[in-house]
């Protein structure tokens, strides 16, 4: 580092490489991404948002909701889950006896304890999850063995992780989920719960509006501030507005008054209801619960 030029060159190369790697390469690789197909269907994902929901994203941005909420589901692993759907003509007790004969098989030996524990005290209720294995061969072998004795089972691919166990999504979030977001609001702090799947978790627009107006009215231990300024308290006219919020007494407006959402609140709710992370994609595979039909 003898001259200004050599510093310039070192800094230029250093920043230039990371610019190519983290700006140019993602632009080329993901910048022209198109809709993809939901796994095992011909439906496209994601769908373009409605007008109200698109405006709602701007409300979400303007109030900085992403300061406390993330919109990304994390997944720690994937597994194959073998679930019993019918015991055929076997009795539960017989079946438990039968499973003991499986444990001598090399692949299944590792799952002895887990299977025995899950069957402990089982009274024959179906469907019953028998085995969760990260190795596909183990799951296949189990299913084959069950089939051989006339027991019906289904093998599902499941995503695992605390986020998924909390119901915050069925699988990890991937690039495709954010295709139409302008701007993408991933968030980096979970002072409030993740919203990637809120449209599935709380699909009731009235619940969402009540939650925005008075969070404690629907979740008593909420730490979310109230967004009262997105609502209008007005005198009930000739007849009550169909949009008026239906709140518990301590949160409701005084007699003769009603609380109605302003357009921004309705747009925000439309946006929240459009957030879903419950469809399988090639890059985030799982077996949806409805696929068994």
């Amino acid at each position, binding site marked *: *580092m*003898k001259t*200004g030029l050599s*510093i*310039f060159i070192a*800094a*230029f*190369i*250093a*920043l230039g490489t*990371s*610019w190519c*790697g*983290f*700006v140019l390469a*993602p*632009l080329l*690789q*993901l*910048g*022209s*991404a198109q809709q993809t197909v939901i796994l095992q269907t011909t439906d496209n994902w994601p769908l373009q948002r409605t007008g109200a929901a698109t405006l709602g994203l701007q409300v979400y*941005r*303007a*109030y*900085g909701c*992403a*300061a*406390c909420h993330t919109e*990304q589901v*994390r997944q*720690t692993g994937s597994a194959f889950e073998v679930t019993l759907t019918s015991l055929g003509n076997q009795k539960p007790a017989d079946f438990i006896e039968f499973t003991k004969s499986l444990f001598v098989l090399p692949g299944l030996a590792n799952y002895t304890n887990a299977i025995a524990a899950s069957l402990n005290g089982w009274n024959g209720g179906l469907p019953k999850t028998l085995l969760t294995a990260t190795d596909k061969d183990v799951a296949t072998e189990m299913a084959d063995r069950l089939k051989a004795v006339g027991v019906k089972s289904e093998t599902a691919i499941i995503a695992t992780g*605390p986020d998924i166990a*909390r119901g915050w999504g069925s699988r*990890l979030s*991937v*690039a*495709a*989920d*954010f*295709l*139409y*977001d*302008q*701007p*993408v609001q*991933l968030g*980096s*702090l*979970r002072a409030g*719960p993740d919203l990637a799947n809120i449209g599935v978790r709380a699909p009731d627009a009235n619940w969402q509006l009540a939650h925005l107006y008075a*969070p404690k009215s629907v*979740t008593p*231990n*909420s*730490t979310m*501030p*109230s967004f*009262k*300024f997105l609502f209008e308290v007005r005198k009930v006219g000739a007849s009550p507005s169909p949009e008026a919020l239906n709140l518990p007494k301590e949160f409701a407006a005084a007699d003769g008054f009603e609380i109605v959402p302003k357009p921004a609140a309705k747009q925000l709710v439309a946006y929240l209801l459009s957030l879903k992370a419950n469809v399988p994609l090639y890059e985030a595979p799982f077996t949806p619960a409805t696929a068994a039909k």
Partner: protein
Amino acid sequence: MNLTENNSSCDREINDSLRVPLLALFGGAAVWLIVGLVLGLIAGIKFHAPDFLGACPVMTYGRVAPAANDAVLYGFCIPAALGVALWIFARLSGQPLALPLVPVVAANLWHLGVFIGTAGILLGASSGHTWLEYPRAAAVILFAAFMLIAVSAAATFGWRRQQELYPSHWFLFAGLLWFPWIYSTANILLNSHQLPRGVVQPIIGWWFANNLVFVWLALVGVGTAFYFLPKIAARPLANSGYVLLAFLTLVFFGTWCGIPQGAPVPAWLPTLSSVAAALTLVPLLAISIVTLKTVCGSNVSCKGGPFCFIRFGVMSFIVSGILYVSAACPQYSRILNFTWFGAAQTQLQLLGFAAMILFGAIYELLPQVMGKPLPQPALAKAHFYLSMIGVLLFFVPLVLAGVVQGEKLADANIPFADANTAALKFLRVSTTGQMLILLGALLFAVNIFIMTIQWKLGIAKTVIAYIKSPLETAEVKS
């Protein structure tokens, strides 16, 4: 002696050329620091009383929190760092500041940009990308102002008397290149009408945030520390080989960090970032060795003086760097991502590292530039202790809150609300820390404003004296 006379006249020229630009940069920076810390305190209080100032859309947490962070970074850290860098360049060049009017204009432009930006966020015009919230108009102004200051700094650098470069030159000069590049790229792509598709936006956002908050602040902060520590200790900077290695590894590896594990982006991006984060341990190690070797054994009695500020700043940098690397480590990131841990690291980087080094540098250089001692040295001393305790009380509870919250979130059997409440207990302590930092910043502002007012009064006196003096005397003198 002739040489000394030359030196002192040269010193006077340098100080004269820097006085106006530095006062413009530092004065505005002090205001923004207080604005940022007050907004930060409001945001902090909202976690204990969610509906505090809740009726007012301008004061929503989601607006106040980014406005606070941006005011501290863009309002205080960057202009203060630029001012300090101008001073260091002029000193190391042995030349007065080149184009001294340009930074004066730029400083006012810069503060205008921060004003528009802060107002924009509070009124809901935020771009929605972290650290890039300022609306387009503000971003354009900030970019132009930076370029003007960079031109003046580069010209001062280019006209230096002594050709040999000092390590601070590397860090500060690289910083001059770094900011315009990342800021223009990020704003052109993320602050435009048609944004790139989907997750390309956050990827660019993370690249920018990392290169600004981690790399750029490290470049100017460490560059400043490596100038002032040996200067105050009157010892040479230890071992330039380590410094060179630290510089090169910082720019080559540090720039690749920042994409969080588990982000909804193809696996190669976060993987690359976590490899780079592990390699960032090398500059952290080298910088700690150099600092230890330079500082240890020096007998500076600094009791709250500039040396203390800067030493504390370097220590904060090392701790903040280690926190940054551990959050990028896949095993830990599962727990630490999306918790207060990230906020703790950012705040330590801003208030514990960058701000502390800049306070120290300003306390050291301002009396020289103004040609008179600090008006209230006791306040500066109090500022140090308030800031130090404040930073510790601010970030340590946040780190603990992050770990506790993360561990509870990782167990799906614990309800979300419980994880949240567990973290909020720690936040009470960190709000206290915020108050102490704010108090310290007020003392800092007092010193700066008294100096500015004294200087303005001085000018006024000279002008009045000149007007009052009889005409003949003036003629005789000329």
